[in-house]
């Protein structure tokens, strides 16, 4: 099975989409729990934003594993987006964002 190396712009877009989903998760949690401590969600949001911004300034290395890592990240991003209108539980949001950040970290390792 042949693998196509995604372009740097494609992978950076996936990181940007992940950061955007993390932000929306934070905002959804804030709207549902205005008085709650959301610092863990905020940390995850900024982690995702930082990974995106670092990748923008770096080069993507050629590695067949990039495609799979990007696909996994896109799936997690999509899953978060699907839950924006329904999920209110902060602990579940934290769990989802932790997973997202781990996948984004895997993707960001392909940038140097």
């Amino acid at each position: 099975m042949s693998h196509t190396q995604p372009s740097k712009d494609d992978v950076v877009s996936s990181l940007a989409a992940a950061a955007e989903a993390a932000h929306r998760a934070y905002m959804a949690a804030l709207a549902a729990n205005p008085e709650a401590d959301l610092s863990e969600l905020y940390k995850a949001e900024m982690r995702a934003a930082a990974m995106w911004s670092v990748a923008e300034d770096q080069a993507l290395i050629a590695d067949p594993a990039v495609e799979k890592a990007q696909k996994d990240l896109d799936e997690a991003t999509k899953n978060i987006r699907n839950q924006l209108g329904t999920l209110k539980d902060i602990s579940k949001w934290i769990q989802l964002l932790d997973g997202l950040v781990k996948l984004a970290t895997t993707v960001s390792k392909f940038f140097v």
Partner: protein
Amino acid sequence: MASERTLFIIIVSALALGGCASTTLTAGANLAKVGQATATQMEQNATISSNAMLSLRKAVAFNDGFNAQIGNQDSETFLTHVASVQSKISQYAKMLDSLASTYSALGDLAAYDAAGSFNTSVKALDKDANAFFQSVQSNIQIPQEAASAVEVGGGIVIGLIQADRIKNSSKIIRAKLQMIIPIVDNPKTKNLLILNKELTTEQLNQAAETMFDCGVYSYGPLLDDLGVPLNLKSNSQSDAVVANNEKLKRGLRNVADELGNQQIDQMAASYDKSVTALKALVPLHESLEKGAPLNLDTVLAITSQLQTIATSLQPTTQPVKGK
């Protein structure tokens, strides 16, 4: 008799040439005026974008503080990236400022013998354009020696010499534009200069929406804006009604989000329009150099659009404290 005829021919020729020279000088002055106005407007639009990024820094600072994350390393990384984009935009604005000065010097050249001033302006433009190219990781550099092509000196038929200088100066500016345009038109340059739309909006909106959710702002301006088609205005009870109604708050939060998105769209539109303006200046230079009439309509229309965008990017109202 023969010498009288020769003299007559010389006088007629001189008058004809003088007429051509006068047309070139007028066209040069017009192009200089339009070019300067365009470059100045482009520079102002770039500066507004840079100011919007300062707001972004403040928003991130608020979000950090609100979430007890002052000194958060990831926020610092994000802001470092923002600072790097900001510095590129400043260099871009500086190059546009130098371009405006070069057009101003072209105008001086059309009015009087100002070749020295023109050469100095072109050298400054070269320097700032090269610094900008470097900031957006382009290997292209404008050769410095091209900047001294307009020679200083007098002559018997001053108008003819000035017209010739105008044409040479136009060629020089056109050559610079033709080097600058491919760099600024490159999507990679645009990506470097315009922060990712969503992520920028998000941080700005997050700060505003958090405060909005906490009831710091009056909902009045948003309500009034939405009420315009039906000539409806908020009243002294509106804030209390919205604060106690989750659906209304959610709807207004979404409107605020949309407004933020529009601002970022305008930043990108402003950049695209500036590139279009630079492109539209090139055929004007070609017309001037050929002695053809200048059609300034396109450039004037683009400059006016840039001005409209600049106005929409400026904050129009002070935030209202309320509730």
